[in-house]
């Protein structure tokens, strides 16, 4: 979706403000939101891609007015309600008012280290040969799905070069919406700064994205 989350090239946000000796968390509730998000993710009721979509799928003014962990909180609450795990009145009450829904698993303290260690690899066996190889010129498609995608707007319609191939991975555009993993070839595509940003761009810069094969078409 063309949401406020897709920030590459947007003007007006001002300077980056690094914070010396920044703590890992700025408030105790941030710790809790991180842990609740990871623990609920482990119940297997949604995918990481669905979680990303829940965070980004909100009015731009709403997205831009929240801090990052507030966006995580909003996304988590939305998924919980959407999947029928909790109801809005229970969120208000802070306690269960109805019986719980069965979940695939509950993360126990003793399994936590193992879960983090395993992570969630997204590489999959290739269902078909790769269409492109390193060195190929490709154009990022001019596409504007209202659903989840990982092709940022600033590269759409622009021509770049495949500079790395990463094998086949779970396709977020499908997986975020319950349509299955639909593994696709994944490439790093590098774009010259002037191709993306015009004549005023730094001639010595290149920007790359990791793009799934359905995002790309041959440039010739």
């Amino acid at each position: 979706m063309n949401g406020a989350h897709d920030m590459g090239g947007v003007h007006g946000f001002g300077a980056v403000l690094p914070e010396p000796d920044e703590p890992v968390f700025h408030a105790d509730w941030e710790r809790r939101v991180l842990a609740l998000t990871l623990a609920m993710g482990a119940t297997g009721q949604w995918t990481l891609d669905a979680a990303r979509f829940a965070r980004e799928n909100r009015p731009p003014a709403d997205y831009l007015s929240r801090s990052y962990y507030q966006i995580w909180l909003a996304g988590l609450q939305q998924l919980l309600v959407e999947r029928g795990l909790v109801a809005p009145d229970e969120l208000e009450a802070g306690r269960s008012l109805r019986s719980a829904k069965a979940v695939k698993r509950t993360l126990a303290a003793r399994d936590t280290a193992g879960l983090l260690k395993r992570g969630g690899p997204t590489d999959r066996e290739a269902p078909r040969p790769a269409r492109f190889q390193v060195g190929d010129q490709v154009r990022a498609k001019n596409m504007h799905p209202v659903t989840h995608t990982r092709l940022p707007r600033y590269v759409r319609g622009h021509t770049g070069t495949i500079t790395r191939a990463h094998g086949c991975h779970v396709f977020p555009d499908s997986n975020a919406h319950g349509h299955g993993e639909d593994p696709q070839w994944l490439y790093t595509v590098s774009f010259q700064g002037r191709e993306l940003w015009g004549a005023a761009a730094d001639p010595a810069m290149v920007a790359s994205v990791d793009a799934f094969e359905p995002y790309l078409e041959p440039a010739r």
Partner: protein
Amino acid sequence: MSRAGDDLHHGADHEHGSELSETQLRVRALESLLVDKGYVDPAALDVLIETYETKVGPHNGARVVAKAWVDPGFRQWLLTDSGAAIASLGYGGRQGEHLVALENTSSVHNLVVCTLCSCYPWPVLGLPPVWYKSAPYRSRAVADPRGVLHDFEVELPADTAIRVWDSTAEVRYLVVPMRPAGTDGWGEAELARLVTRDSMIGAGLPKRPQDVR
């Protein structure tokens, strides 16, 4: 997106008494509800927090970089099969399932961003800082990387090429900064003290010997 300061204002300033922020109250209610429902185990939450607050952090990545600086065989392995080389030091897993190391040289400087959200190599760097997730960084890194580096007080020669890596899939990037001059004969542990988090994102340079001695 609002800045870290907003979190500070609504969070740390109002930790006590009746002045709990709305967000803090919401999170408390949510946690109570999810525990009440049996969806989450409070002990698991504590382990998750402890892991990312005290165990996993940039010191992991610093160890990887320092080893690459002293061991040419490891450096080569790191640059050709990053995940395996990093796993040999015990790091991998969540949000670092597919790691790629990028080497800075005198002619090329790498800078990593996630314009769409906050993708970051957790096993080697921990959780991302607020600035990495902020709108100013995400919007400008891909369009004006030299301007962004200026915000970090990093000035590179005009002919140094800048490669910006937008982490739009599950590949996570770790920058291997250039080894500072004046560190001949240093051991790995000593060198690791020079490797800053920002230098492994490409937003900073390592410390110099005089900064730590």
